[in-house]
């Protein structure tokens, strides 16, 4: 066996028994890693705009290092050139000068403090880089499919040599900072992938041509980095399938040649990835079933002798455990599951799987990065605030009796946080089941069932913290006056608003909740009133049953409450299911023939409809007055305050939970 940096003994933990393959050591180069878990390098935009590491970045990574329980924790990729052409994110860490070493060392130290293996990554962003400059670099001046990127300048041979030198200089700095593992990123459209791909490399010199020519840059780079690294293992991230067949990208066979050549050049571990930012196919969103990409890891294993790791929709431990056991994978990588819950693998090890806050694969984390905003998470309110004591769950100064009205995502989140702080928390809901509107929302197609995971998590946390449930109990003014709690949190969800137009009182106007629960008959021609996420969800639910669906909504754009990195999936599915949408429109009348839609500028469109499904929502002020009249501390959260989305409900719940 190779060098073992920290001793770990997992034998007494239930997770090691349940998932034996995840908690076995593995040798990577001359280093032995105690388990098969890796937090994969993820940009977070938490560094200074000058590339210096910040307290926020260190705290963020420290939590993830704690989570890997002795495994590999890799910091985000660094850019390596003073001109910043390799920089792809405003808050990306830099390593182009020795002045960055102290900050990088803070990251390595933070990982080591948790007895984890400290990894770092070199990441020149190539054709998706140059975020602060006018031109980006690439092997050939091929324009990007997306307009947001800078024009590409073809690299000269001198540029290539300089670029390799910058990689080597940065490697030296990262080694001085104390990292134990070094990775080179060649994925999703970054520089190495640009050289490798037939789509973006059209050079006729020795750095272009066939796949061996296109790999020359990678091979030269790996060999030089290996020489510098000595006993420190070197990994690489490369695409097993670029998913660029529509623009003449590499074949899967060519991708396997890149893997074999990387191993020949000396890499010690291969991180398998799929797709580019410019791919037209979805890869990691919720509509892609978990485990869909494991066949790529299996294929890589057939071509390599070095260990193979992979992330990409492996959100639950059973999948990688089985794959490792079957010899299809060696190391389980994670980004988003550990953004949502940094301690995810630790909880797996400790047999606390119910306490894992599950990622809902919405990609808001990525959407934020691409829009120059700091990392955030849809369902983890603490993400990127790990440094901030205001976000900590601290014991309450005075224990209170808290009545929470509504067992939806906002109410449950607030309940467990408040209970963990020492309050006596009672959750009421008129329904017998927990979950609020997520019960219905999770019945929509294309992976929305995963949304319910948030309810399972919150329920477990409530039970753990002694929250008392009063399900099937409608809270009335009399009940509040009888109980007289110290605080009331109204998390009652929204009111569904029918609109004022003639016809909204007809029998064929039904609630979205009743439709998704199958409690009403729906005709063949349906108008969905409301063009936000609830409208999209029910429209797809009905269209997949063969109904002709038209969405009508007042918002100027469809799905305003859905983040852009996921909205394109819904737009594609609506088109595929032939759903029409009239945005920036109102309903003027509902009659026997259907619905008269009126555009914002007064044009009228007749739409046939047997059924109108109401998804428009408004705030729900019920019970507010009675609470205030009795001088009880009052909080209104989630859709009851302002109808928004699951994320806002959870974040509201957490923020009030730590304040009560």
């Amino acid at each position, binding site marked *: 066996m190779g060098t073992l940096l920290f001793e770990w003994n997992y034998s007494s933990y239930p997770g090691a028994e349940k998932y034996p393959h995840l908690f076995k050591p593995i040798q990577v180069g001359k280093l032995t890693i105690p388990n098969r878990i890796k937090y994969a390098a993820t940009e977070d935009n938490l560094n200074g705009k000058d590339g210096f590491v910040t307290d926020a970045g260190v705290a963020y990574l420290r939590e993830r290092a704690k989570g890997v329980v002795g495994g590999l924790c890799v910091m985000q990729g660094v850019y390596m050139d003073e001109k910043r052409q390799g920089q792809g994110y405003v808050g990306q860490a830099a390593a182009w000068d020795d002045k960055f070493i102290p900050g990088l060392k803070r990251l390595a130290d933070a990982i080591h403090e948790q007895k984890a293996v400290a990894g770092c990554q070199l990441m020149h962003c190539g054709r998706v880089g140059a975020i602060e400059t006018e031109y980006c670099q690439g092997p050939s*001046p*091929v*324009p*990007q*499919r*997306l*307009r947001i990127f800078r024009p590409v300048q073809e690299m000269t041979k001198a540029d290539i040599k300089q670029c390799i030198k910058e990689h080597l200089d940065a490697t030296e700095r990262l080694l001085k900072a104390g990292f134990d593992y070094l990775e080179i990123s060649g994925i999703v459209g970054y520089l190495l992938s640009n050289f490798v791909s037939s*789509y973006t490399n*059209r050079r006729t010199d020795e750095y272009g041509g066939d796949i061996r020519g296109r790999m020359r840059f990678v091979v030269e780079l790996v060999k030089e980095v290996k020489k510098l690294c000595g006993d420190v293992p070197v990994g690489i991230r490369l695409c097993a399938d670029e998913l660029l*067949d*529509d*623009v*003449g990208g590499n074949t899967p066979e060519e991708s396997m040649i890149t893997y074999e050549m990387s191993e020949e050049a000396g890499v010690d571990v291969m991180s398998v990835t799929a797709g580019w930012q410019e791919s*037209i196919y979805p890869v990691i969103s919720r509509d892609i079933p978990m485990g869909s990409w494991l066949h790529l890891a299996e294929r890589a294993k057939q071509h390599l002798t070095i260990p193979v790791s992979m992330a990409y929709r492996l959100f639950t431990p059973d999948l990688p455990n089985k794959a490792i056991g079957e010899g299809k994978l060696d190391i389980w990588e994670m980004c988003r599951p550990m953004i949502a819950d940094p301690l995810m693998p630790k909880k797996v090890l400790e047999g606390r799987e119910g306490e894992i806050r599950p990622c809902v694969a919405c990609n808001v984390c990525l959407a934020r990065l691409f829009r120059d905003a700091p990392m955030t998470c849809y369902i983890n309110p603490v993400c990127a605030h790990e440094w901030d004591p205001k976000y900590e769950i601290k014991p309450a100064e005075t224990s209170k009796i808290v009545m929470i009205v509504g067992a939806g995502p906002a109410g449950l989140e607030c309940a467990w946080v408040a209970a963990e702080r020492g309050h006596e928390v009672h959750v009421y809901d008129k329904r017998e089941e927990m979950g609020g509107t997520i019960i219905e929302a999770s019945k929509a197609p294309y992976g929305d069932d995963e949304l319910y995971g948030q309810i399972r998590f919150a329920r477990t946390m409530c039970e753990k913290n002694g929250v008392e449930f009063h399900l099937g109990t409608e809270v009335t003014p009399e009940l509040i006056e009888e109980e007289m709690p110290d605080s009331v949190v109204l998390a009652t969800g929204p009111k569904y608003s029918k609109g004022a137009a003639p016809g909204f009182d007809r029998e064929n106007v039904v609630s979205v909740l009743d439709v998704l629960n199958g409690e009403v008959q729906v005709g063949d021609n349906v108008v969905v009133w409301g063009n936000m996420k609830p409208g999209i969800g029910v429209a797809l639910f009905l269209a997949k049953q063969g109904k002709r669906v038209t969405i009508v909504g007042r918002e100027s754009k469809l799905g305003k409450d859905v983040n852009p990195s996921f909205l394109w999936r819904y737009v594609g599915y609506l088109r595929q299911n032939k759903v029409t949408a009239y945005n920036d429109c109102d309903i003027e*009348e509902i*009659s026997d*023939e*259907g*619905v*008269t839609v009126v555009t914002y500028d007064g*044009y*009228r*469109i*007749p739409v046939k409809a047997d059924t109108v499904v109401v998804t428009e929502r408004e705030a729900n002020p019920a019970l507010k007055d009675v609470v205030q009249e009795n001088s009880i501390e009052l909080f209104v959260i989630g859709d009851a305050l302002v109808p928004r989305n699951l994320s806002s409900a959870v974040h509201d719940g957490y923020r009030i939970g730590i304040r009560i």
Partner: protein
Amino acid sequence: MAVDPEKEISSLWRALQGSQGATRRTFYQMRRALLEIAGPDANPLDVGVRAWEIVGKDTGKSYLPRMNLLKGIEGLMASVARAYQGLATTNGALVKIDKGENPKELFITWERCPWPTSAKEHGASMKEDLQGCDTYLQAFLDEVNAFLGTNLKIETHKAIPRGDGVCVRRLYNPEDK
């Protein structure tokens, strides 16, 4: 439903034509502003053609997400031709696409186009109108070619500004000429 379809459609049609006219007027008003700022030494032909090159390149860029080789070079040519057709139609032209004898050539015919008339109204030469349009279509195509590594060409056979009554352009792949 109390909707008068004739009234709705005629109102929308008038609005569309008004918008098309405004687009053309705005182009020539911007051109005039440029010429006034540039002074008497500026060549109106150069200004007009350069403007169309910028429009063509930027429009081509915006169409890249819809361009691909999934249906081979013929599929790509059809996509480009349809893009030209859609853009021209939006601007008030009437355009048809015909297959040529060679399966890898398409003929695009502008049976009517409001741009030469607008050019005359704003004092631009027919030479500028034709050269501007050719440059616009070529710049669009250059962007697609750079993106996909193809070598599609377009050539003008007939032109309304030359008095031919229609514009006919041939879109082809020279490797299959």
